């Protein structure tokens, strides 16, 4: 449903997007992850037809998106970062305006506006000026305009940014609901958004794709972890843990006056957990807590960003 192929975009001397390629299947919620400046918003703007790529191509619903072909933008609803909806208009006037831009006739606009007001729970704010609404309601107006013409593809750039927890939960639930019938590309810095909503993930760093796949597959590709909290009289705990067979990396996770915590990236968590206990006995360390775990999406994200740094 979305196909991005070898996309390049440079702003003066800054290479914002550097050969990005990925695909998102129909009726999938795909999370688009990466640190600030990774090229997510630029890629999304190219997808939405707001920017032209220097090279490469994007296809939405089987049609190539080019800036000089307005019709190619009809299959996509777009919510940019910071929700730049027109604050000087009332909610219904703004949605009616968007309906005209989307080519809907009078009856179509009326029906579409009523539908999205209900979908985004905006009925009680319909006549209010957008500038008078809270950030959460403005975000809902942004979603409503993206959904107005019922496009098969939605591109949402940080839709939960700056919202309170209740509003975040509401928007996550809406995205999950939309993902049953539409293809959604969702950019976010909040990894909890992804765990709750996305079935596919694309990670970007410095304008390049560094990971793509389902969150579970990506986690499986990563080394599991052993977390250990202990009391040790010696200062060389980190080095001795790293020297254990099967430990690929050790990172300190915190310490207080007595206890120290470490995360060990390992090849076999059960075997290494046993080795840690053996070492603790031998070195006379007191183990407070020992946890074996599969890595989560946050760990995958951090490792992928660090490994390419």
């Amino acid at each position: 449903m979305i196909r991005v192929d070898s996309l390049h975009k440079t702003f003066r001397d800054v290479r914002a997007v550097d050969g990005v390629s990925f695909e998102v299947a129909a009726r999938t919620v795909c999370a688009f992850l990466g640190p600030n400046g990774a090229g997510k918003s630029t890629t999304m703007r190219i997808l939405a037809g707001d920017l032209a790529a220097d090279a490469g191509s994007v296809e939405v619903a089987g049609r190539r998106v080019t800036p000089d072909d307005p019709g190619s933008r009809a299959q996509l609803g777009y919510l940019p970062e910071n929700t730049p909806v027109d604050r000087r208009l009332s909610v219904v006037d703004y949605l009616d305006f968007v309906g005209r831009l989307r080519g809907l006739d009078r009856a179509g606009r009326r029906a579409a506006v009523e539908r999205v007001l209900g979908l985004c729970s905006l009925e009680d704010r319909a006549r209010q000026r957008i500038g008078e609404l809270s950030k959460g309601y403005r975000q809902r107006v942004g979603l409503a305009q993206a959904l107005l013409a019922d496009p098969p593809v939605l591109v949402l750039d940080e839709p939960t940014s700056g919202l309170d927890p209740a509003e975040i939960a509401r928007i996550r639930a809406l995205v999950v609901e939309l993902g049953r019938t539409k293809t959604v590309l969702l950019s976010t810095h909040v990894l909890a958004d992804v765990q709750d909503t996305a079935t596919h993930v694309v990670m970007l760093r410095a304008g390049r794709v560094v990971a793509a796949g389902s969150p579970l597959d990506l986690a499986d590709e990563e080394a599991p972890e052993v977390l250990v909290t202990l009391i040790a009289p010696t200062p060389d705990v980190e080095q001795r843990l790293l020297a254990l067979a099967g430990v690929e990396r050790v990172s300190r996770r915190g310490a207080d006056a007595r206890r120290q915590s470490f995360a060990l990236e390992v090849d076999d968590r059960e075997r290494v957990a046993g080795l840690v206990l053996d070492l603790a006995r031998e070195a006379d360390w007191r183990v407070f807590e020992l946890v074996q775990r599969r890595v989560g999406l946050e760990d995958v994200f951090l490792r992928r960003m660090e490994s390419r740094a």
Partner: protein
Amino acid sequence: MNATVGVLRRELLIFLGAPVAWVLAVVYLATLMTGFFVVGFPVGDLRLPGFWSGGYAALDALFAWIPLSLCLFVPALTMSSWAGERRLGTDELLFTHPVSIVSLVVGKFLAHWAIVVGLLGAAIVPAAIAVRSLGALDLGVVGAGFFGAVLLAASFVCVGQLASCLVADELAAFLVASLLLFALVGLGLFVRVLPPAIVEVAWYASPVVHYVETAVRGVIDVRDLVYFGTLFAAALTLEVLWLEGRRWR
């Protein structure tokens, strides 16, 4: 067409919903009426007395004030047309809808033009009624003058919108458009102080000259229509090309 009407409606709603726009409109009308009835037009070669002191039934002083007054009013109206969209970030969303930039530009132009024409009507029609009740006003000349003012307003709106598209912020857009319009108007008003070599070019380049031909003499000349049509087409084309180009920058 639907998109053009949508933009036209949105711009009118924004104007009508902004208290500052109403203040601007009232100040504009009050200034124009004061100029016509009391002050007269004491600028350039064509000096005219105010209506009360002149004592003859014509709207010449009112028509003479229109170009200069529009040099301030039109930029104030158009300064936010694109610069305001950029400030609010709404341009990013606007350009992702399946509509051509031409339809957006034309919609904005029609809205601003309609507002200016409405205000000119609100000045000219009551003034004409007042003068006609006191003397024998030639309605043909008034009609031609109004027509000339409508063409003048169209060309000024194009220039104002173009400035708002080219420069970074609203204040800069206002200043650039005002300076440009004052320069164009000044070419006609102060043609005698210009070097002889450029007098003819300056004379033809000034919109005031083409406007005065219709407003004062009551004659609609094809050359004036060509002039305004060219200015209108050039400014709108440049605006569309500039906005299309932003996608590639």
